[in-house]
Each structure stands twice: as structure tokens, then as C-alpha cells.
């Protein structure tokens, strides 16, 4: 845990010092806005990293859970006028129920089949967002979603929302790190390593696979709620299949072997998507594809594996 504490301290100081520094660096000038999005996506990818990197499963449909959280919050606050906190709770409840229903049969599948099943699931949810016009406003969506508030304090400025989002991310990160360094985390990694042996050592493998699937859906759902109350407008396009793949991509680019990889990958790719790629409008899909291909082929461990590779290169050349 000692080494994790150092990393957390580094992240926190980065989060505190950076808003001050960015004013002087044009390439990252939109810092707060981008970092709010990055934080929201980090929540999704922390959960996805647990699911993919630790438990060895795959989901190509996690944008659906982001969407379920987002629409639950949006509909409950804007249409029923209830408290946003109820919206968040409802999102969590609905997401986890759907994750259980979809997860039980899906997680019996392996590899390609699981990938296709989750992809199909994500697409179905996307279609529902488009078709249930009465509830979701269909393809054009709906607006007038209120800001989050505690009592009379409203999280309407970028700085307050930045602090809120990253506070939630840090809590999510703590929770994830604690899990990783526990019997639960070891059980997941054992399933990843050898499912049959894990089962024979007393790990109820199907229950643990379901648990991480549901947990990761909850992370995504909370992220969706935060997303909704930040942009205060919803339409289905943020929850399509390409977003599911982008989340997987963030995890892979950063490196699946650790949640820190997910955080690094997510911050980088969010900057790429929101800032740097806007220069070439029609290229962005292509650039994403090329990055994903190159990383998978030439740096399969992702960015977090770079130090180890460099170190072993150095020792080899000696």
C-alpha cells in the first residue's frame, strides 16, 4: 500500500497545482472543462479496468451504463422535479439491476462471445434511448436539467464542479485500490489467471464475475449522473457504441494491468478528443483507430508498462 499512497499523493498534488499552472500553457488552456470530463470518464474506466485488467472479462457496452445513469438523473430531476441525489441513487439501482440481468447469462460466455454480447447489449440500450421519445426526448434529447446542489449551494461554477468530480473520482479510486489489495481483488485476479483453479481453491467464480460487472456498472452510472448535471442537456449520441469502445481504449492505452493506467489513459484521450483533435475534424475517428492499433500491437502493456520496458532496455544494454 505504501507505493499506492505515493501515487495518490502525486495525483492529488497534480490536481491541485495544475489549475494554477495551466493559465500559462495554451495547449491545455481549457483545463477545467476537459478535466471535468476526464474525471467523469475516469470513473467509468476505473470500473472497466477492474473488470478487464483484474478480472479478465471484457465489456464493449459500458457506455450504456453511463447512459442509464445519465438518463435516470436527467429524467428524475428535469421531468419529475425530484432531488438530484434521488436521481443518482435511482441510476445506481437501475444500472445494477440491469447489470445483474445481463451479467448472469453474459458472463457465462467467454472471449469473442462475451465481447459480442456486451456490444449487442450496448446497442440495444442506445436504441431504447433513441426510441422512448416520451421519456428521453429521442434523438434530439432534452435540456433544462438542474445543477447539483447541497442545500442552497449549487455546483454551477466550473471550479466547484471540478472539485466535486475529482473528489468522487478519488473516493472511487480509494475504493478500487482497497478492493485490489483484498481477498476480493485477489479472487478476481485468480479468475483472470486460471478460472478453473480459482474455483477449485474456493472462489465462487461466477458470483465474483457478476460482482465486478455490477460494480463497474455502478461506477459508470455515477459517472453518467455527474455528466448530466454538468452539461445539463442530454441526447443519446454520448452513449453510443463508439463511446463504449473509447472507454475500452482509454483502459488499454493507459495499461490494463493497473487502475492507474486507466486514469492516465483517460486523461490523455480526453484531452486528445476534446482539445487536440478538434484541429482535424474529420480525422478523429481515424486517429483513434490508429492509436488503438499501434498501442495494441507495439505497447500491449499500455503507458504504465513504459518504465518497466525502458528499465529492462537499460539493463540489457549494459
Amino acid at each position, binding site marked *: 500500500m505504501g507505493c499506492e499512497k505515493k501515487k495518490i499523493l502525486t495525483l492529488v498534488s497534480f490536481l491541485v497545482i495544475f489549475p494554477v499552472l495551466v493559465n500559462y500553457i495554451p495547449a491545455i488552456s481549457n483545463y477545467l472543462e476537459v478535466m471535468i470530463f476526464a474525471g467523469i470518464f475516469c470513473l467509468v474506466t476505473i470500473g472497466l479496468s477492474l473488470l*478487464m485488467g483484474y478480472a479478465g472479462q*471484457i465489456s*464493449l457496452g459500458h457506455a450504456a451504463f453511463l447512459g442509464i445513469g445519465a438518463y435516470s438523473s436527467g429524467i428524475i430531476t428535469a421531468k419529475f422535479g425530484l432531488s438530484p441525489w434521488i436521481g443518482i441513487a435511482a441510476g445506481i439501482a437501475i444500472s445494477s439491476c440491469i447489470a445483474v440481468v445481463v451479467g448472469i*447469462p*453474459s458472463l*457465462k*460466455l*467467454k*472471449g*469473442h*462471445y462475451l*465481447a*459480442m*454480447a456486451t*456490444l*449487442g*447489449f450496448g*446497442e*440495444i440500450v442506445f*436504441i*431504447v434511448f*433513441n*426510441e422512448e421519445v416520451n421519456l428521453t426526448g429521442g434523438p434530439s434529447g432534452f435540456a433544462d436539467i438542474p445543477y447539483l446542489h447541497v442545500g442552497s449551494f449549487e455546483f454551477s461554477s466550473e471550479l466547484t464542479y471540478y472539485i466535486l468530480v475529482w473528489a468522487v473520482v478519488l473516493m472511487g479510486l480509494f475504493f478500487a485500490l482497497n478492493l485490489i489489495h483484498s481477498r476480493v481483488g485477489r479472487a478476481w485476479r485468480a479468475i483472470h489467471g486460471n478460472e478453473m483453479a480459482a474455483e477449485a481453491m474456493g472462489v465462487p467464480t461466477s458470483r465474483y464475475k457478476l460482482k465486478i460487472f455490477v460494480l463497474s456498472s455502478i461506477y459508470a452510472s455515477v459517472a453518467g449522473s455527474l455528466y448530466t448535471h454538468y452539461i445539463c442537456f442530454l441526447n443519446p449520441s454520448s452513449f453510443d*457504441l*463508439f463511446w463504449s*469502445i473509447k472507454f*475500452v481504449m482509454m483502459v*488499454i492505452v493507459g495499461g490494463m494491468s493497473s487502475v492507474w493506467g486507466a486514469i492516465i489513459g483517460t486523461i490523455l484521450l480526453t484531452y486528445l478528443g476534446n482539445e487536440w483533435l478538434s484541429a482535424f475534424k*474529420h*480525422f*478523429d*475517428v*481515424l*486517429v*483513434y*483507430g*490508429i492509436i*488503438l*492499433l499501434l498501442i*495494441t*500491437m507495439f505497447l*500491449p502493456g499500455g503507458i504504465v508498462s513504459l518504465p518497466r520496458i525502458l528499465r529492462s532496455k537499460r539493463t540489457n544494454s549494459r
Partner: protein
Amino acid sequence: MNDTAQLVQYILTGITVGAIYALVGLGYNIIYNVTEVINFAQGEFVVLGGLVMVFMTNTLHLSLPVGFFLTVSVVTILGALMDKLTIEPIKDANVLTLIIITIAVSIIFRGLAMLIWGRDPYALPAFSKAPPFTLFHAIIQPQALWVLGITTIVVILLSLFFRFTMMGKAMLACADSPEASRLMGIPVKKMVLISFVLSAAIGAVAGIVITPISLMEYDRGALLGLKGFGASILGGLGSFSGAVIAGLILGLIESLCAGYVSSGYKDAIALIVLLLVLFVKPSGFFAGKRASLKKF
């Protein structure tokens, strides 16, 4: 239009799109049989087929046969490049890596299509100038007959290829046992390349024949791919005839549900069928006993 006419109309539409799903499903099966890889870029071959044909016909004003031939060649080359540049160099490929790589390639194809053709849908003229005719009071586009005819030809050619040519038989041997095939001197690498070439060609043909009916745009690939995968799963992954029957059934279900239940959920229906099959009987329904996995 009366009720029967409507039913006939739905059935015909269903069979037409079903033929396309069948072709996409066949594409999955050919690659799966040789490599045990599910090529997530399969749907993109269809899109590229349609859009390249648009370029050949609308931009270069080539005649139908020349355009057809050139389009299939271009997409086939892309399929070969995909294998040579991304699949072949991968050593120690675990399933996750292969999934991600084919997804990356599919995104690259999509990105290229968007870069070249933009986000608009494109139309193609029908293959023949003949006017629509009626059957049981239903209006039938001649292009639908082209789709069915060409699909039939592709299926026949494929079965002949696998049954009677050395190369086809060698590919089947690879499917049965890659190790043994290598020992027997079958060049497995070449077989993998051919499997990509074949599926790309079949995808391209599907794209070319369907575009005059349903238009084509850069981001159709994912959904086409999913539905085609539905066909190959429902038919039993790897089963040749299974994919054809299942593709037609899937198209029919989709068209009938769109007609009688809800047109908005048309795309969801095929996906729900896909999930149900995966959950209930992932080995498929139409593969027969022997032909469970990895068999034509």
C-alpha cells in the same frame, strides 16, 4: 395495399436484407474457421463495398461490371492488408488482443470512409433499369432480385470452392487442426490470408448489391456486423449453410417485427435475437450435430 400484399412485401424485404446478413455471417465464418478469430471489422467490408462502388459509378462513371470488379478488388486488397499488417505480425495472440486489433481496424476503416465520403449517405442506381413490378399486389424492386440472385451465386461458388478445389479443402483442413495441417505442409499463413481475402470480397459484394436499396454511409458497419454475427451465431458459428438459413430468418423476423410491431425497434430485434441465442444456445440452432463448431 391489402393485408396479403403487405405481408408479401414484408417477407420480401426480410429475405433481401436477410441475404445481406447471411453474406456477412459467411464472412465471419470463413475467417473464424481458419483462425478462430471473430473479425469485428466484417461489417466495414460491406460499407466499403458500397462506398467504393459509389466512387466507381458516380465519380468515375464506370460501367456496372467494371465497377463491380474493381470495387471487389479494392476491398479485397484492404482485407489482405488487414491480415498482413495487423493479424499476421501478432505472435502469442490472446483473444482479447485479437478482439481489440480487429476493432481498431474497423475504426480505421470507418475513419477512412468518413474522411473520404463524409457523413452523408450515398445512393447507387439499381443494376437494371426495369421498373418495379407487382406480385400478389406487392411492389417489388428488381434490385431485390439482384440481391437474392447474387447471394445465391456467391453461396454456390463458395460451396464449390470448399468442396472441389485443393485450396478450399486445405482451408477446411486448417479449420480442423492447424497443427496437423502445418505438419502436412499446408501453408497456414497463406490460408489465413485467403480467408481474409474471401471474407472481404463477400462483404464487398454484399455492400455493392444492397446500396441501391438501402443507401450506404460510413458508420453502418457496426450494426451490419452485429446482425451478421447474429446470423452466424444463430446458424452455429462456423457453419456454412447455418449462416445462410439464419441470415434469412433474422432478416424475416426483423422485417415482420418492423412491419407489425414497431419500426423504431427494428434494429434492436435482431440484436435481441443475437443475445437470446448467445444466452440460451451459443452453439447455434442450424448447424446440425456434427457441424457444431469449425465445420462447413
